[in-house]
């Protein structure tokens, strides 16, 4: 939805685009601080809104409960990284010729149909590329979690990168740390290879459709 909105022309579009890419441009560590404050168990604004809506009576310990902490971190990460995906997909959307939509509309297709038949297939390469990017980045996520939860509570949000960092910097186990790095690296290479394979297939697929 984000990306479809950005592709439309309207007054104030530049303001909307500016605010839409802002999360991407800001330092993740600082954004983590902002979200930790928003999800604060005592004074956080999320708890306050929920209390005012009458949904809860006492504040939820967002960053102190394993599942909730994970959800909070994911939410903050989505907020931070959606703009980047939007930009990638926006470029793809802009490269789709408007003639296609026109011809499709003349044939009596509805907006939803042309979205499914034209937009999605032609955007497939970009979708796969952005998924690949996002996957690799999210896999190595460090700043946000380090700042928001430090991997806690009780290791509930301890991702690979935090584990590697702690192994090396806290326990000073360089050998084990290096082994972790290599294994993670290989896993990522595997993921990239699979994604590249999918990308190739979707390219063939789209040329067939067009």
């Amino acid at each position, binding site marked *: 939805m984000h990306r479809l909105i950005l592709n439309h022309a*309207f007054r104030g579009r530049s303001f909307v685009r500016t605010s839409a890419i802002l999360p991407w441009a800001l330092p993740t560590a600082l954004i983590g601080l902002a979200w930790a404050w928003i999800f604060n168990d005592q004074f956080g604004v999320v708890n306050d809104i929920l209390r005012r809506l009458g949904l809860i009576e006492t504040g939820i310990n967002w960053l102190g409960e394993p599942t909730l902490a994970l959800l909070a971190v994911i939410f903050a990460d989505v907020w931070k990284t959606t703009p980047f995906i939007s930009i990638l997909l926006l470029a793809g959307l802009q490269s789709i010729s408007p003639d296609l939509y026109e011809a499709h509309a003349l044939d009596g297709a509805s907006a939803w149909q042309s979205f499914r038949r034209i937009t999605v297939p032609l955007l497939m390469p970009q979708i796969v590329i952005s998924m690949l990017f996002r996957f690799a980045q999210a896999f190595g996520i460090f700043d946000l979690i380090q700042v928001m939860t430090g991997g806690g509570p009780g290791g509930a949000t301890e991702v690979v990168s935090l584990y590697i960092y702690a192994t090396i910097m806290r326990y000073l186990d360089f050998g084990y740390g290096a082994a972790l790095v290599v294994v993670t690296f290989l896993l990522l290479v595997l993921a990239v290879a699979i994604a590249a394979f999918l990308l190739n297939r979707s390219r063939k697929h789209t040329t067939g459709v067009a």
Partner: protein
Amino acid sequence: MATTIQDRHSTEAPPSKSTSARIGEILRWIAIVAVVIFCLAPILWQLLTSFKVNEDITAVPTVYFPTRFTLEHYTQLFERRPFWRYILNSAFVSIVSTLFCLALGTPAAYALARLRPRGQKAILAGVLIVTLFPGVLLFLGLLEVIQLFRLGNNYLALIIPYTAINLPLTILVLRSFFEQLPKDLEDAAKVDGYNTTQMLTKILLPMTVPALVTTGILTFIFAWNEFIFALTFITDENMKTIPVAASQLGGASSFEIPYGAIAAATVLGTLPLVILVLFFQRKIVQGLTAGAVKG
């Protein structure tokens, strides 16, 4: 680019369906407003927090429209900590690595675009793959290198890795720029009697400036935001960059968290980037799409 989008929009909305078009219009505006609020709210909330007095910050229920404002949290940052240093450190490291990046990346991109060396696809793929790997996989290796060259607590410990990490994007963006540049210009310059060096510096370089600005902004943003290298390679309080320094702000005791000061630090650390995005929004989008999609 803007005109083509506008044209497309006018062809997309047929004039016949007035009611449904109007509903669509309203729905779209709701969606737009929701996106803007979603994107800005956390930042604005931090901004408001940074100006609240401590009693309002920790008030339950939350104070949304404070009547008292204070600059105390900001002055505190500069009095209790070398916050100017943090800002200068971040600025220095980011600017220098950006310049290095452009100085090294421009010739590389030009060579890839014009000379089309054998195996350029492999080079580009290699360059692209490097950008995929997160910093946490690199910092151990770099740490060893830094210890070997005794670069710990030295700005070079950040400048060199930032340059290296941002080079791929620089090369990709600039390469796609050079490929769009007509080669006739260069040939014409040669016919006019320019030698290669003159052609490059007098004809090509001035035209490259917009692309250099675009990539420079991206590199600057990445360098300013980088966390794990800055956290690991710099331990001297006076050399820390803003993201690291802000994440380490603590209170007088471990139970007292200085929410106001943290908010103020967040605002100061994000301000330069907010300004950059405000002025160069279009260029940033262009740069990212050129770098990511064409590669």
